[in-house]
């Protein structure tokens, strides 16, 4: 690679299309309204999460039954868990993000699975189901923290 770089001025930038201040400009109220929009979507989120849980369950089942290439099957679990991880906290379900992250972290370092790994994945899938079925918003409060601690113990044991 050459040590030389070429600097190019873009033909336009956003400053030419935005005005600062005035009617319609973003202010604290607009930010608050936008955050409220997210809060209002939280009920919809629960239904979306239930759909994702069905997908996660299917991906888990395929992995357990070994239908196909293990890396592909693991990727199937990872993709759903990753989506759920990203969505959870965005809709006020931070505990879902925390558990989804743990599942992603477990799955992404695996090339193949045995009974131990299957058991661990099952524990996380169950926990994600509990979060939605019990409506554990935020960090889940005391129940959520107990769930997290219980998860760690179970995963260490398995």
């Amino acid at each position: 690679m050459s040590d030389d770089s070429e600097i190019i001025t873009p033909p336009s930038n956003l400053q030419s299309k935005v005005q600062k201040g005035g009617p319609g400009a973003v202010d604290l109220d607009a930010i608050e309204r936008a955050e409220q929009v997210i809060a209002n979507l939280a009920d919809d989120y629960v239904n979306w999460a239930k759909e994702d849980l069905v997908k996660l369950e299917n991906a888990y089942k395929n992995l357990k039954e070994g239908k196909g290439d293990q890396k592909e099957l693991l990727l199937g679990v990872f993709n759903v868990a990753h989506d759920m991880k990203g969505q959870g906290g965005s809709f006020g379900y931070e505990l879902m993000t925390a558990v989804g992250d743990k599942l992603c972290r477990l799955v992404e370092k695996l090339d193949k699975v045995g009974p131990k790994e299957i058991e661990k994945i099952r524990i996380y899938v169950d926990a994600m189901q509990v979060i939605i079925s019990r409506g554990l918003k935020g960090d889940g409060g005391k129940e959520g923290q107990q769930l997290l601690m219980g998860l760690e113990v179970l995963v260490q044991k398995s």
Partner: protein
Amino acid sequence: MADYNLSRLNFLIVDDNKHMRALVKSILHALGVKSILEAGDGADAFKELRHFPADLIICDWSMSPLDGLDFVRMVRTGTDSPNPFVPIIMLTGHTEMHRVMEARDSGVHEFLAKPISAKGIYSRIRAIIESPRPFIRAGLYFGPDRRRKENPNYNGVERRKADKGEVEGSVSSISDKLKEPSGNEDKAASGGDGGGDGGEAPELSQDEINALLNG
């Protein structure tokens, strides 16, 4: 606080998850954005760019068949790219340091970690508005200047030395901060998913990502 009026900007949202698209779209509407187009993956988005004059793209990383990084590279360096200079915000749950650097090196302007918030989205949009960056063509890279702190006055085309050491310095300073074991950079550089070695790269917070990107 009186900030920017976004009503004249055209946004393209690229995400294979319709719920996340709905969320981002709702947030943008609440911030006063009127023109928003959605695409379900990188290939669709690239097609849309041919007729939609996007001012800003908010793009998810994990998509198929064309993922977010592939899409960014196509926009930046594709010979038939309709808009190689368009600002791109990469939206993703992949926040390990090597992922952030990979996104930056593909040519994104900003990196927004999931879970997302209205404040988070607006802060990235504002950063792009307030800090327009020149584009750099260096070797295989074409995209916004990755050295954000330097704001040289320039007129037209210039040439300068690429400062590889500065980039490596910013990476190692965050590495030190996170107290990662030595050798992690080597692992990160492989950029692969699930290497099977049992190691874990720590995920960065949005503040840490901003610090990393700002050098």
